[in-house]
């Protein structure tokens, strides 16, 4: 039986202060790209009690995604926006989810993401990552970006870290491991990077709500 909204809310870890729970529940976060990074970021934010997620991707779930993305066999062929919505509903049925199925471009990025105080950049290709970061930093003065950059292979995962690079740009990753030339993506380092991005989002939510970290 599906738990009630009240039961789900009561299950939030009561050891955290109430203000933190409220800040997370009223937070609105956008995730741009629902691959290995974005699918896991969304799952972690849903588990953390984030109240509203905006999920953006143009692609469908393929068998080659299963090595590192949050999807399963039952999602094959579905648009990632739809598959991830179904997955998140299994975790947090009362989460507000908005989706947009399409290609993000320099022309539409500001309109899509400008209303979000926090955007996770979770694209795959470097030119798309750079395009989104440049466009949002130039055109969306109220948006903070948490970007994933460098998580390929199976090298030392301790090289993946979070850095505040600009006032409104945090970058998680090792900054160097690129896909191609014998280097692919594997679940552990991708999930480490996604976890860092999701954690940085929680820190930003707390900071934006004026809650100090201990």
């Amino acid at each position, binding site marked *: 039986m599906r738990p009630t909204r009240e039961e789900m809310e009561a299950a939030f870890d009561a050891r955290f202060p109430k203000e933190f729970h409220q800040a997370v529940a009223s937070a609105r976060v956008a995730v741009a*790209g629902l691959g290995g990074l*974005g699918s896991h970021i969304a799952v972690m934010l849903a588990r953390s009690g984030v109240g509203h997620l905006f999920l953006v991707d143009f692609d469908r779930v393929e068998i080659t995604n299963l090595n590192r993305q949050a999807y399963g066999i039952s999602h094959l062929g579905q648009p990632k926006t739809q598959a991830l919505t179904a997955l998140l509903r299994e975790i947090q049925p009362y989460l507000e989810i908005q989706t947009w199925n399409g290609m993000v471009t320099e022309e539409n990025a500001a309109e899509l993401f400008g209303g979000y105080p926090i955007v996770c950049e979770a694209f795959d290709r*470097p030119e798309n990552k*750079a395009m989104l970061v440049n466009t949002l930093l130039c055109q969306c003065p109220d948006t903070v970006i948490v*970007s994933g*950059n460098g998580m390929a292979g199976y090298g030392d995962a301790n090289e993946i870290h979070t850095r505040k690079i600009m006032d409104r*740009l945090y970058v998680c990753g090792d900054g*160097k491991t690129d896909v191609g030339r014998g280097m692919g993506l594997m679940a552990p380092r991708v999930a480490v990077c996604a976890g860092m991005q999701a954690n940085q989002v929680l820190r930003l939510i707390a900071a934006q709500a004026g809650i100090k970290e201990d």
Partner: protein
Amino acid sequence: MVTINGEQVNAAGKTVAEYLEEAGYKTAYVAVERNREIVPRATYGEVLLEDGDVVEIVRFVGGG
């Protein structure tokens, strides 16, 4: 001297585009901040680096 990603570089007088090319960056893969302001990509060819500037260049790699 210009501080670029924390290092002192003799790049004063060059445009952002010139520096990026010399240093081997692809403009399509980077974001550039100069003195805490994002440099719009359309202006890379015009913005001149000056003595004392503090520049951050993020180079994006593939994977996600």
